[in-house]
C-alpha cells in the first residue's frame, strides 16, 4: 500500500524552469512542482494569485542549486516545492 502510494508520489514531483512550463504542469499533471524561488513574499504572493499554487515546503536536506526564480527571474539558491493544495 505504501509502495503504491510512494510510486504515485514520486511520479508527481516534476521540475519546472519556465513560467509556461510551470503553469502547464500545474494544470495538466498536478503534484509537486520543483522550481526556483527568489525567497521573497512578493514573488510567492504573485504565484499564489496567478496560479493558485503555494509553496508547500522547502525540503529538509535540500540540495543547493543556483538558478533563477520561476516568477521574477531573480537569483535563487535552491528549488522549493510548489503545488495546489487542500
Amino acid at each position, binding site marked *: *500500500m*505504501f509502495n*503504491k*502510494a*510512494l510510486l*504515485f*508520489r*514520486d511520479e*508527481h514531483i516534476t521540475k519546472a524552469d519556465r513560467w509556461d512550463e510551470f503553469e502547464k504542469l500545474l494544470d495538466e*499533471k*498536478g*503534484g*509537486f512542482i520543483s522550481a526556483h*524561488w527568489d525567497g521573497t*513574499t512578493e514573488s*510567492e*504572493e504573485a504565484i499564489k494569485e496567478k496560479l493558485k499554487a*503555494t*509553496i*508547500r*515546503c*522547502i*525540503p*529538509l536536506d*535540500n540540495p543547493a542549486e543556483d538558478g533563477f526564480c520561476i516568477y521574477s527571474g531573480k537569483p535563487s539558491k535552491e528549488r*522549493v*516545492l510548489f*503545488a*495546489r*493544495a*487542500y
Partner: protein
Amino acid sequence: MSKEITSRQEDYAQWYNDLVIKGGLADYSAVRGCMVIKPYGFALWEEMRDVLDQMFKDTGHENAYFPLFIPKSFLSKEAAHVEGFAKECAVVTHYRLKNDPDGGGIIVDPEAKLEEELIVRPTSETIIWNTYKTWIQSYRDLPLLINQWANIVRWEMRTRLFLRTTEFLWQEGHTAHATAEEAITEVKLMLGIYADFVENYMAVPVIRGVKSASERFAGAIDTYCIEAMMQDGKALQAGTSHFLGQNFAKAFDVKFSDKQNKLDYVWATSWGVSTRLVGALVMAHSDDDGLILPPRIAPIQVVIVPIYKGDDRKEMLDAKGKEIAAGLKKAGIRVKFDNNDNNRPGWKFAEYEKKGFLFALPSACGIWKIRRSKSRGEIPKKKRMFHRMD
C-alpha cells in the same frame, strides 16, 4: 464499481464525500461547517490517536488539559499570532439565555454580557503560556513537555469533511526549554514522529520540510511540516511542528533562572496533527468501490460473514465463525463477527466493501477462506496463517 460511489474520474470531490458519508465515517450537521463523526469514523480516529499518544508518552510527554476559552486580550499579546488567527475566531459574548419578555422565545440576556469576550480556542499557545508563567521559575522546571488532546474552532469559509471543518479534534503539544538548541531538537523529533506515523501506520509517504515565511504558523520563528500527495495530485499538509523561539515567553513574561542564576526567557515549541489525517487516509488509498484502509490502523481488519444455505447449517456456521473470530482476536487481529440475519449477505458485502473490510467466510467443511473484493490491497502476513484450517 459501486453505483453508490461517484468515480474519481467523474468527480473527485464528490467521490471523496461519497466515501466519507456512505462509508459511514461522518455526516454533515445542523451547524454550518461542522461535522458529525460517526462511530466508524471515530473508531478510526481513536486508533490513530492511541498510536500517536503512545509515541508522545514514549518520548517523555504527558497529557494535560487547558481551557476551551481564551480571554480576548490574551490573543493580542503576541502580535503575529493575533493577526493570523483573528479572522477565524468564534467569540462568546454572553453567559446566559433568558425568555424574551416580548414573547420572542429564548434570547441572549443583555444583563449577562461578559466584561471581556472569550475566544473559543483556535489554538492554545496563549492560554497555555499564560499558565506556564506560574509553572516555570528555574531550569529545574525545564523541559516542560505537555500535550493535550482537544477540540478547536476555526471559523473556516470553505469546509470539507475531515480535511477542513470549523470544529475539529486534534492534539497540540506545547513544550518549554532552556535553550534554543534543545527546542529545535524537540521540533525535529516531533516532526519525525509525525512522519513515522503517517508513513508507517497510514502508509502515506510524506516530504519533510520547512515552510516559507508567509506560510509559517502565526507567531513561529520556523514551521516544519510534512506534506503528502493525494490521488488528484493536490498536496495536503499532514502535520506541523513549530519553533516558537522566545516569542510567547516574551508575550507572557515567562522567564527562568539558569544554572548561573541568570534570568532568560524560555524557548518554546508547539506541534499538532488533527482529524484532517482521517481525510488524508481516505483520500490517499481508497478506490471507486469504497474505503481502503491500511491494516495497522483499520478499526476492523476482518469481518466474518457466515452464509447460511439452510437452517441446519446456521448453528454450525455460527459456531465456526465465532471460533475463527476468537482465533483471530487472539492473534491480535481486530475482527467483527456479523451473523445478524436482518441483512442479507449481499447487502453486507456491499456495505463492508465501502467500509474497507476484508471478508472471511466460514464454510461447511471447516476450511475457510479469506476473500477480498477485487480491488483490495495486500493481506497482512498474520492472516495468511489462517488461510487453511482443518
